[in-house]
């Protein structure tokens, strides 16, 4: 990344104004892409002094500031109570500790990275994002926004729901990006199924969820059918990491395992 100017904002409004002064201006998250990206940036805006680096636990939710690092999420014991720790486990698998001490929640989510090991579990939970101008919206809606708004992500809000969860990241080597990642959650007999790194961005398997959530009993046949419906409705692709066929097979297996796990753990 080639950056010509560096601006340390004192307030969100100041950061927002600077962000909109030039189309190439951007907010710096943790900085993990400074070397890997080839973008040319007029002004990089640092939010470090604004104080978005807290995890606040309220009666009903966790509010995680955009500047909180992935390591802080991973080590937060209260977050681990939600959905069998899938969000803690998801970020735990990202590179090494040194990188997780740098990478921020805001940078990871705003970037809408298709291989994200944070977005997939968060989507399977009950998560909203709060933007400076755009206000609060479900994470799902934020991910669907086509245009990259010149707005600032302030925090994410995760509802305190102690449902059951499963998260699996298939990777070829320890520090690699996901070939595919799958999250399955269950709360009050309702399942959510999310598949990421397809290689496109994580999304719900809507038809599969509708099918499984309308069954009176979760039998092995229902699990099998749900996984089949999921891979039929989701679009998979080929890239240097894996073929479309391989991803489709993997997703079916991990969805099946996820459904089994959250079902068995309840019994």
């Amino acid at each position, binding site marked *: 990344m080639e950056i010509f100017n*560096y601006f340390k904002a004192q307030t969100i409004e100041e950061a927002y104004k600077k962000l909109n002064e030039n189309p190439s201006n951007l907010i*710096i998250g943790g900085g993990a892409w*400074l070397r890997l990206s080839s973008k040319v940036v007029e002004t*990089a805006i640092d939010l470090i002094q604004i104080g978005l680096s807290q995890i606040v636990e309220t009666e009903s939710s966790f509010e995680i500031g955009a500047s909180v690092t992935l*390591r802080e999420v991973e080590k937060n014991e209260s977050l681990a109570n939600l959905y069998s720790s899938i969000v803690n486990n998801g970020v735990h698998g990202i590179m*090494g500790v040194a990188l997780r001490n740098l990478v921020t929640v805001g940078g990871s989510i705003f970037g809408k990275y298709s291989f994200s090991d944070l977005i997939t579990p968060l989507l399977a939970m009950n998560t909203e994002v709060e933007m400076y101008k755009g206000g609060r919206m479900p994470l799902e809606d934020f991910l669907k926004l086509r245009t990259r708004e010149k707005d600032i992500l302030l925090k994410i809000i995760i509802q305190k729901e102690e449902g059951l969860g499963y998260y699996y990241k298939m990777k070829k080597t320890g520090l690699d990006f996901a070939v595919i990642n799958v999250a399955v959650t269950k709360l009050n007999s309702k399942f959510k199924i999310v598949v990421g790194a397809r290689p496109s961005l994580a999304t719900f398997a809507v038809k599969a969820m509708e099918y499984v959530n309308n069954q009176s009993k979760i039998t092995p046949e229902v699990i099998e059918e749900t996984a089949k419906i999921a891979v039929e409705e989701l679009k998979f692709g080929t890239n240097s990491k894996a073929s479309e066929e391989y991803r489709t097979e993997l997703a079916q297996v991990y969805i099946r395992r996820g459904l089994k796990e959250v079902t068995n753990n309840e019994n």
Partner: protein
Amino acid sequence: MAKIKFTLNNKVVEIEESPTARLLDILRDKYDFVGVKEGCGEGECGACAVLINDKIVNSCIVPLGTVEGKSIVTIEGFSKTKRHEVLRESFEEEGAVQCGFCTPGMLIASESLLNTNPHPTDEEIKIGLSGNLCRCTGYNMIIKAVKSASKKGDGLW
């Protein structure tokens, strides 16, 4: 260019530099702390690891501007401590150093791990060092060395 003030190996320093310069380059080129190595340059190998406010980070992807007011410890600063002495001896005794290129990063990662977990299990050591690559040893000797240091240096961390 901007004036950036921070603590480097327990000494307050101020430098006029581009805030977008990489911390790694500044440490090596401006302060001559060449124990901080550049391996991948992309945050993957851990050869450039330093402690910022006691937390391990990869200095190759840290913009200088973000260290304003913070405390940085490189392998040179850490080498003046008793904890380093214990770790160094353990690395030597266990044969955990071969070409040595990854060693400064491994020692910083070990210090970071032992600071938060003075008596780690093998699995916890593997996780603690998972961001540091070694192409010579196969890791077993490094894991043994950290375990040995944890025992010998009991009470230091």
